[in-house]
C-alpha cells in the first residue's frame, strides 16, 4: 500500500512555527522589545530569518529525552562500578576540577544570558532558538554537576565551586568573559557566545577536553561531553545564522559585526589558554598538543569559516596572527604561573615526568627546550631539595581578560608583553594589543572590572593579609585542596586504591 503523502520538513516547520507572533498594539513594539535597537544593528525584515535546524518542540523534547536517558544510565553505571578508579592517575583530576570550577558556572551563565536574549529579539525565530539554547545550557550545567558529583566523593578541591566562582582570582578569567557578554546587548551576546565562542572556538574547548577525558579513562566526562556536543551543533548553527542574518540585513551592520568578531575572537582565544594548558599539562595521557589543536581547529577550520564570510566584507579577526605566533608558548607560560600560585588554586600542580617533557620537546621543539624545559627541571630540583617553589605574592592581571600579565611579545618570546592604556587620568594594564584594543573601544566598561588582586589589597576578600588567608576565604584547605600534587591526599589515596586493586592476570599458560 502506498504511503500517504506528507508535507516536507521545510513546509511543516514553517506551518508549525510561523505566523504565531504579532505586532503589538496595546504597547509600541519598541517598548515591548526595548533592547534590540540600541546596538545599532538594523533589521529590515525578520521574516528572512532561516532556522538551519528545523527542530519543532516535540522533536526537541524527544531527542533531548533520549540523550538524557542514555547519559544518566551511563553515569549510574559509572558510579556503581567505581569508574573513578579507571582514570590514568589522580593528576588527571586537575582537569576535572578546572572544569567544574571554571566551566560549569559558565554554562549556568549562558542559560541566563540566552533567557535574556530569548526575550529581547523582536523576531520570533530568533527568540525560540535562544529559548531552546537557554534550556540546553541549563541541561549542561546540571549534567556536568551530576557527572562530577561522583568524583567529589573521592577527590578534593571541588566542594566549593559555587562559592569560589565569585571570589577566586583565576576564576575571574571565565567569569569576566561571560559577564562582558551578558552586560552587552542581545546581538552582541549571541555573536560573542553562539558564534565566536560556540562556533569558531568551541571545538578547541570540547574536542580536547572530551577526547582528553576519553584518553584518560574518564567515562563520565566523555559521555557528558559528547552528549552536550550534539546540543552544541545547534548552538553553532544559531551563531552562524545570527551573524549571516545581520550581515545580509543591512550593510551598516558589517563594521559593527566585524568589531565584535575582533573583540570576541581575542577574548575567547585568551580564555582558551586555560584549556590548552590543561591539554599539555593536566592530562597524563596526551591527546594532542595545544599547538596541534590550534592548527586544526583554528588555522584550518576557523579560517575556512572566515573565507565563507568574506563575501559579506568580513575580514579575519584582528590579532589572529598573534595567536598563531604564540601557539608554541602560552601553555608553558600559563602552567608556570599556575604552578607557582599553587597556594591559591583549588587544583594541584606538579612538574611533569621526563616522558611528558620529552613529548613536549617533540611537539614544541627548540622553543620549549631552550626556554621552558630548563625552568621546569629547575622547579623539580627545588622540589626534590624540599623547597618546592611557591610565589606567595599577588600577580598583576590584565584589565580585560584578567589573566596575569605574563605573556611575551609576539615577536620576542623573552620579553614580557605589557600594554599600558591611560584613561581618565589612570593607568590600566593589559596583557596584549588584543586586550588593549578591547579596552580602548569601551573604556567605561572595563574600568568597572572587578580585579581580584586589587580587591584583596582593598581588604574586600575577608580582610586576607596573605595568600593562605585568602585561600581559606575561598573555602580551600591548605595542601588538601591547594598546593603540590606529590604527597597530597589525592595522591596518597590514589596510591592506596591502586594497591588494593587485583593485579591483572595473564591469559597465557605460565609454562608456555
Amino acid at each position, binding site marked *: 500500500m502506498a504511503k500517504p503523502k506528507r508535507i516536507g*520538513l521545510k513546509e511543516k516547520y514553517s506551518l508549525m512555527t510561523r505566523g504565531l507572533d504579532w505586532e503589538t498594539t496595546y504597547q509600541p513594539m519598541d517598548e515591548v522589545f526595548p533592547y534590540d535597537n540600541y546596538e545599532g544593528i538594523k533589521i529590515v525584515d525578520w521574516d528572512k530569518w532561516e532556522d538551519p*535546524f528545523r527542530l519543532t518542540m516535540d522533536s526537541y523534547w524527544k531527542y533531548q529525552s533520549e540523550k538524557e536517558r542514555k547519559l544518566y544510565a551511563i553515569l549510574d553505571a559509572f558510579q556503581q562500578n567505581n569508574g573513578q578508579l579507571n582514570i590514568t592517575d589522580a593528576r588527571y583530576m586537575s582537569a576535572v576540577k578546572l572544569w567544574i570550577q571554571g566551566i560549569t558556572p559558565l554554562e549556568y551563565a549562558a542559560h541566563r544570558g540566552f533567557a535574556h536574549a530569548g526575550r529581547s529579539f523582536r523576531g520570533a525565530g530568533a527568540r525560540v532558538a535562544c529559548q531552546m539554547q537557554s534550556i540546553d545550557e541549563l541541561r549542561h550545567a546540571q549534567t556536568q554537576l551530576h557527572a562530577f558529583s561522583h568524583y567529589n566523593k573521592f577527590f578534593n578541591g571541588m566542594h566549593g565551586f559555587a562559592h569560589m566562582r565569585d571570589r577566586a582570582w583565576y576564576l575571574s578569567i571565565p567569569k569576566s568573559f561571560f559577564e562582558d557578554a551578558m552586560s552587552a546587548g542581545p546581538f552582541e551576546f549571541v555573536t560573542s557566545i553562539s558564534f565566536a565562542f560556540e562556533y569558531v572556538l*568551541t571545538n578547541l574547548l570540547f574536542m580536547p577536553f572530551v577526547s582528553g577525558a576519553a584518553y584518560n579513562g574518564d567515562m563520565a566526562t566523555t559521555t557528558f561531553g559528547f552528549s552536550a556536543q*550534539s546540543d552544541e551543533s545547534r548552538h553553532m548553527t544559531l551563531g552562524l545564522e545570527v551573524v549571516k542574518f545581520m550581515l545580509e540585513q543591512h550593510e551598516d551592520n558589517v563594521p559593527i559585526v566585524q568589531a565584535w568578531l575582533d573583540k570576541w575572537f581575542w577574548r575567547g582565544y585568551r580564555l582558551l589558554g586555560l584549556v590548552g594548558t590543561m591539554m599539555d599539562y593536566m592530562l597524563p595521557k596526551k591527546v594532542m598538543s595545544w599547538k596541534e589543536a590550534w592548527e586544526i581547529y583554528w588555522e584550518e577550520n576557523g579560517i*575556512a569559516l572566515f573565507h*565563507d564570510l568574506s*563575501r559579506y566584507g568580513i575580514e579575519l579577526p584582528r590579532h589572529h596572527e598573534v595567536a598563531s605566533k604564540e601557539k608554541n608558548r602560552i601553555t608553558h607560560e600559563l602552567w608556570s604561573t599556575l604552578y607557582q600560585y599553587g597556594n591559591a588554586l583549588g587544583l594541584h600542580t606538579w612538574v611533569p615526568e621526563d616522558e611528558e617533557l620529552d613529548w613536549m620537546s617533540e611537539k614544541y621543539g627548540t622553543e620549549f627546550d631552550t626556554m621552558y624545559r630548563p625552568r621546569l627541571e629547575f622547579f623539580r630540583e627545588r622540589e626534590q631539595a624540599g623547597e618546592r617553589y611557591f610565589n606567595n605574592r599577588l600577580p598583576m592581571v590584565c584589565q580585560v581578560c584578567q589573566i596575569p600579565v605574563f605573556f611575551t611579545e609576539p615577536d620576542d618570546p623573552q620579553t614580557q608583553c605589557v600594554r599600558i592604556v591611560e584613561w581618565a587620568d589612570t593607568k590600566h594594564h593589559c596583557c596584549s594589543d588584543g586586550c588593549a584594543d578591547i579596552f580602548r573601544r569601551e573604556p567605561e566598561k572595563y574600568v568597572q572590572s572587578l580585579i581580584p588582586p586589587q580587591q584583596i589589597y582593598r581588604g574586600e576578600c575577608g580582610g586576607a593579609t596573605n595568600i593562605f588567608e585568602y585561600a581559606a576565604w575561598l573555602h580551600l584547605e591548605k595542601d588538601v585542596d591547594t598546593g603540590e600534587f606529590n604527597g597530597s591526599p589525592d595522591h596518597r589515596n590514589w596510591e592506596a586504591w591502586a594497591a588494593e586493586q587485583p593485579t591483572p592476570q595473564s591469559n597465557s599458560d605460565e609454562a608456555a
Partner: protein
Amino acid sequence: MADNVFIAFQNNSEAQPIIEAILEDNPSAVANESPGMVKIDCPGRLVVRRETVEEKVGRDFDLQEMHINLVSLGGNVDEDDDEFVIAWNT
C-alpha cells in the same frame, strides 16, 4: 582548493551506518577516528542522504535522529526530509 567542511559523530554502533552512508555518498570524504569520536572532513560540501542511511541501517530513518550522536560540524547547514547538507559558500 576548497576549504574542508566537517561533521563529527560519537564512535558507537548507532552512528556507524550514518558514517558509512556519508563515506559512500561523498567520495572525497576522509574519516579520522579518535577515542570516542569519528571526524569526517570533506572539501567544500558534504551530504547525509536519508535513503543511503536507510540502506545501511535496515529500517526507516529520520535524519533528525542524527542529533543523538552528532558531536560537531563545520559549514553552513541546510536540512530537509531527504538530505542534510553542510557546505561552504566559497
